[in-house]
């Protein structure tokens, strides 16, 4: 009995030492990576705070629906925004606009949409709650615009000059750069 107990102890020790010595014999792979995802805001060459369309290029077929997000890059906290979006109204039509998480707190944001001959005005307001009277800061989706394609061709998406974002004190936030988008209907 003593012998078998000693044998088990010895075997366990050999296993432990064996494991340690095997580990001594090799090393592992070094982490090699490329942070080159085109949707990574760092790779977009935008000077924050900025507004851009995501994805910046959409290829689709005639008659299909597409969605494009209006994105804010490193935005400060804000209470309301007016987006003046220019699109080719002969190529696509706006179906709907859905607010994103940027202005969503405990309450859902309030939105007003005016779509008139290639100019889409989207007004979004943060509804204050017990925690805050303005949105969180950072890189967030502000709204998603759904389009339907009506003719073939390439159309551009642009932010117009009336685009503004204001904080809870109604002061205008500085936007350093505006990105553009393309819709290619085949």
């Amino acid at each position: 009995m003593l012998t078998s107990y000693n044998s088990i102890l010895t075997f366990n020790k050999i296993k432990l030492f064996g494991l340690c010595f095997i580990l001594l014999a090799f090393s592992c792979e070094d982490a090699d990576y490329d942070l080159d995802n085109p949707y990574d805001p760092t790779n977009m060459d935008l000077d924050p705070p900025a507004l851009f369309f995501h994805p910046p290029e959409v290829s689709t077929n005639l008659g299909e629906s597409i969605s494009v997000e209006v994105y804010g890059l490193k935005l400060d906290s804000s209470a309301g925004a007016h987006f003046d979006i220019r699109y080719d109204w002969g190529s696509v039509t706006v179906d709907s606009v859905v607010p994103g998480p940027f202005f969503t707190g405990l309450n859902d944001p309030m939105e007003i949409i005016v779509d008139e001959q290639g100019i889409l005005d989207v007004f979004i307001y943060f509804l204050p709650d017990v925690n805050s009277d303005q949105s969180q800061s950072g890189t967030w989706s502000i709204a998603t615009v759904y389009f339907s394609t009506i003719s073939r061709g390439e159309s551009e998406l642009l932010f117009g000059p009336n685009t503004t974002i204001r904080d809870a004190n109604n002061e205008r936030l500085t936007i350093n750069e505006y990105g553009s988008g393309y819709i290619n209907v085949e």
Partner: protein
Amino acid sequence: MLVIRGIIILHLVSFCLATETTRSVSMKTGNQLAVLEFEGWSISEPLTKFLTEEFRETIRELEIFQVQDQGLTNEINIFYPRKKNYWACWSEDCAIDLGKRLKVNYVIAGNIQKKDLDEFLISGRLFSIDMETLIDEFTMNSSGITDSLLLEMKKMAYNVSGLPVPDTLSVGTDTSEVAITGDIKRKRQWFKLPPIPTKIKALMMSTAIPGSGQIWVQRKYPGYGFLGTEATLGMAALISYYNYNKAWGGFEENYSSYQNGTDPHILEELRPKVIQYAQESRRYNSFMKSIRGVAASIWIVNMVHAYLVAPSDDYFDGEYFFDLEYNPNVNQLQFNFNF
């Protein structure tokens, strides 16, 4: 975190050493026996060697004593470098002195004398090293040649072990039921591997498990030192590997999500995580590489040390193969290489 790791390593090392200590204490108070090579008077040296080894083997098989290996017992040459006459140690003082040096509890010294044409006298003395006294003396007569001598040696092994001699051995001249020298030789011609020199054996053991060769040749402290050092480094490598694995898992998961992701918000959050996990995995991998370098160096030193401290065998020393030995004439360590 580092303190906790240190405590865990210390506990593991002390656990390993503690079990070894317990075992060595029980061995020291027990039954370690060294059989000095019998002295042959008027019989050939190879036959004396063979009979001594058979005697050792028989006692070992009876499992009353833990019989020290031939190579280790012959290490006594280091203490008494007289050429092949250390067996002349017949007195109590000499045997006890040798026993202490060999770190055993009992020593057997003996001789085989050729009295007449076919008559041999085998004498043996059993000394207790712990009690520092002669415990028993055995004398046996044999009227045959080698087969009978073999039987007598086996009988003596039973006597030394305090066991009754079995009938198969007591028949005396009837050798039909026991292996005779010729049979043993024939069998060994098929299965016996070439003898491995003690130095090479110690080297191989230390190559497999650092320190084990040193422990086997009774250099216990350096042996435990090498074993403990390598085990500690191994544990450090294990802990590093655990942390590396964790960091690598985090890196793979986040990098995969980053590569396949399309949401700028999520990608912006993933980017610093990928960089952080990559840096951590590189750091732990670099630590493992450093440990590997240190451990490999110590491992090689341990192998060389095992080879150097292991005793040289008579058949091995300077006759063939290679050997490292100190030459007092030129006051240099020399590398002998012979075929």
